[in-house]
């Protein structure tokens, strides 16, 4: 059990280092880096917990990306920064780079089993990732519009 926890912490550290790299490469402002790291942490925890509970790749990806996107929309309003700044580094750990590589390796080495297994998994993760973003984006626009209207009305009253 202890070994599992230690392994989880190490994986989390690796994911955080990768996310920090993305934040540096894309020039994320210093004031937002902490929030971006938190987005990635949430994504990692949600995805790993869903996987550990037997949710499967597809469900875990949907949950991971939707929780991160929701967090990004809320934080973007709070710290007044574009949502893109939070989402992109936040969900990078879900991008199925490894699975795409093994799919390609399977195709190149004529290992159809490897090709089919990893290709299927890459598709599941990518579509789960997309669905999570889409679901939250779809509901966030009307909510954002409603919030803007309420804020404007309050401002006019005062």
């Amino acid at each position, binding site marked *: 059990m202890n070994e599992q926890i230690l392994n989880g912490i190490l994986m989390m550290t690796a994911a955080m*280092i990768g996310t920090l790299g993305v934040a*540096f490469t894309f020039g994320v402002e210093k004031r937002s880096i902490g929030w971006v790291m938190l987005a990635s942490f949430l994504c990692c925890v949600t995805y790993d917990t869903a996987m550990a509970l037997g949710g499967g790749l597809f469900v875990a990806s949907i949950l991971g990306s939707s929780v991160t996107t929701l967090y990004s929309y809320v934080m973007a309003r709070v710290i007044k920064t574009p949502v893109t700044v939070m989402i992109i580094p936040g969900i990078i750990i879900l991008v199925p780079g490894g699975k795409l590589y093994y*799919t390609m390796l399977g195709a190149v080495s004529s290992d159809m089993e490897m090709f089919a297994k990893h290709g299927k998994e890459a598709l599941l993760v990518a579509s789960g990732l997309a669905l999570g973003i889409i679901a939250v984006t779809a509901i966030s626009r009307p909510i954002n519009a409603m919030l803007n209207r309420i804020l404007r009305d309050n401002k006019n009253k005062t």
Partner: protein
Amino acid sequence: MENNVTLEPVTEPETESEGVPAAISSEDAVFIAMEMGKRILTCGGEVHRAEETIRRICTAYGAHTVDVDAILSMIILTADFGNGDLTSFRRVSDVGGNNLGRLAKLNALSRRICATKPIKEEFLALLDEAEKSSSISVIMKLLGAALISFGFAWYFGGSLLDGALSALIAIPMWLVLKLLSRSNMNAIVAKFIVCFMGGVGALLIGRTGIVCNVNMIIIGDIMNVVPGVVLTNSLRDLFGGDIMSGLFRLCTALLDAVAIACGYAVAILIFGGAV
């Protein structure tokens, strides 16, 4: 109704209209809005954000009606400031940039423009300041690339050594990619060349006898070039109703993915296998 078509740059301000603050002409207001929209698209913002920014800026400067349509490669705006329709068009090139810091700065600047309504010269100075303060240094980009490769090679199951070797390859890969894009090389071909180089580098390291996992080294480097930003933005554009821009970005992401896969595949085929 008078149709006034302006092409960039708008140089000669016309007589002031009733809805616009005294210090600024409607042409200048349109110029400011269009410059902001164009820059948002070039640093990785969504089409919806660019359109919304243009709409808000024009309204802040007193436009009665604003019709704006943007796709990734162009923006068309028609605004009425009380003296008839004013139409402007911008061709947007270089939309592949990913400067999220600049996007945040431009977002803050657009709020400031709406609040303070600066004149054209003030706006240009503010824009220059925002762009200068958000440029990313080469050292930062190299450090970022190395951290991405190190972190993700480790995260996807490699050892610390695999991560370090992956980071070592990521640096020349990034430099060559930069060099190729500066020499106007086709972006897809450039990615193919860089990935081929990365593949050869990782496979050569594997052949030296160092105890490492070549697959993990390659995966770490792939995370550096994988079109994550484009893919995410394409989905957000598609489901936000900007079908054209979403498809444009989706195609770019798919072509990038094919170029990356082909680059590594050719390297693996030449070496006769990954391990």
